[in-house]
């Protein structure tokens, strides 16, 4: 698990905490991140039934601010950012001129003319460069705030009660995909009701020097509720069960949002031109008339686990490819997301399998997500 380049791994503000907890660390996009603290399966189940605490400080924060901040983002991204209300957030994407996905993003409107763009760690520099280039000529500043924030998430059904015990902020009024400034355990934070687990939960953006204090406060406040520290391994299985795409797996520059089944994030009716518009119009038409491969869920009938890159087969032919696969702690079976030819994409399509190192194992095609929480 060594990095291909010689640069030392970056460490988050919580590094010493992870080591004192005995975490197994891993290189993730150049960051030394906790993979798991104990059993990733138990961490996963804790998030589904109680709550888990995550260090997500590797995520890339970029601030766009100024009179034309919304115009910059409407031009640079595929979504309608001008329509995001103050204190709300939006899931969106940034594409190349040819429509290929550069990254998927969450954009928070934190002030009247200020937006916080959160990019995947591996893509943060690409997104920063693209935003900077695309902001040329607009009256707005694009600022690299990667070092300005640590990001701690608390996810799971117990998270509202645990967080409420540490803040006076009005969490009841804080909807999914909303964020408000507040104070948590005496620490100033942007409190966002977002996550990547399929559970209710919060993401807390704080200054790095406050990260340890906030983590300790959340750990202590959550102790009785069964809150446990959680690593990136269970974050991956949680998002997979929730049917959420991961850049580099379900999303790549080779695909447009329409190819990924996420055409709904592209807003052609917004004001002004945006990067990728023409190519995306063509991609939308293509998807309508002649659907490309479709992203589906697969559930194993056996116990062997499909992995990214394994061929999906039917009748001896390759009809698709697995993008993510793992043993599902909730379902108790291996699951996968895969792009498959439209003819085999309907839930229940018979005869579909995955080529697992040479043997064709039967799989059931299902609609995504695999898991949806009870509200």
């Amino acid at each position, binding site marked *: 698990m060594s990095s291909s380049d010689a640069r030392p791994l970056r460490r988050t503000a919580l590094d010493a905490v992870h080591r004192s907890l005995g975490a*197994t660390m891993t290189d993730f996009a150049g960051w030394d991140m906790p*993979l*798991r603290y104990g*059993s*990733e*399966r138990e961490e996963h189940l804790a998030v589904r039934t109680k709550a888990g605490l995550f260090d997500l400080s590797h995520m890339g924060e970029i601030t766009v601010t100024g009179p034309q901040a919304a115009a910059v983002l409407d031009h640079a991204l595929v979504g309608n950012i001008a329509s995001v209300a103050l204190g709300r957030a939006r899931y969106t994407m940034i594409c190349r001129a040819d429509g290929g996905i550069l990254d998927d993003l969450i954009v928070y409107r934190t002030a009247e003319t200020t937006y916080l763009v959160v990019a995947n760690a591996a893509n943060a520099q690409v997104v920063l460069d693209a935003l900077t280039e695309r902001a040329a000529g607009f009256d707005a500043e694009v600022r690299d705030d990667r070092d300005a924030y640590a990001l701690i998430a608390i996810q799971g059904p117990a998270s509202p009660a645990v967080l409420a015990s540490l803040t006076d902020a009005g969490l009841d009024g804080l909807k999914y995909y909303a964020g408000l400034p507040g104070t948590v355990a005496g620490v100033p934070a942007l409190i966002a009701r977002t996550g990547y687990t399929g559970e209710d939960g919060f993401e807390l953006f704080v200054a790095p020097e406050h990260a340890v204090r906030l983590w300790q406060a959340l750990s202590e406040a959550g102790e009785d509720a069964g809150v446990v520290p959680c690593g990136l*391994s269970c974050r991956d*299985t949680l998002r997979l069960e929730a049917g959420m795409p991961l850049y580099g797996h379900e999303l790549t520059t080779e695909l447009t949002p329409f190819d990924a089944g996420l055409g709904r994030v592209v807003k052609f009716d917004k004001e002004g031109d945006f990067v990728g518009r023409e190519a995306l119009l063509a991609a939308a038409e293509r998807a309508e008339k002649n659907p490309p491969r479709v992203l589906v869920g697969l559930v194993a009938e056996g*116990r*062997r*686990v499909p*992995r990214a890159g394994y061929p999906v087969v039917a009748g001896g032919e390759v009809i698709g490819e697995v993008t993510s696969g*793992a*043993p599902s702690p909730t379902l108790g079976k*291996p699951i996968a997301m895969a792009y498959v030819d439209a003819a085999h994409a309907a839930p229940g399509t018979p005869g579909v399998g995955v080529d697992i*190192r040479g043997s064709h194992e039967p799989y059931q095609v299902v609609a995504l997500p695999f898991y949806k929480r009870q509200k």
Partner: protein
Amino acid sequence: MSNPQHLRYSKEHEWLSPADEDGVATVGITEFAANALGDVVYAQLPDVGSTVTAGETCGELESTKSVSDLYSPVTGEVTEINQDVVDDPSLVNSAPFEGGWLFKVRVAEEPVDLLTADEYAAQNEG
């Protein structure tokens, strides 16, 4: 973690017990390997009656993140597999040197290049 002194170890992180009076030895993976794998969810073990060869793959272990080949540390005939591990692979994580053993082999050739507990520990320090 401590590697039991009475076992011998392969570079691929399997352990081998001393053979009993019938010449049968037990094989498992080390705690170091189990920790590196993460939660084991599926163990494909060699068939009883088949022959395994030292240094060659004889099965696989699936964990959350990956699948890993299982190498036999010794050459011989498989006399028994651990059905408890087949039914509950997490035993490999919780008790790798005890209840999480994988299979038993009637040793045909005494292995020559296995490591002592201390040599194995030194390998993993590197």
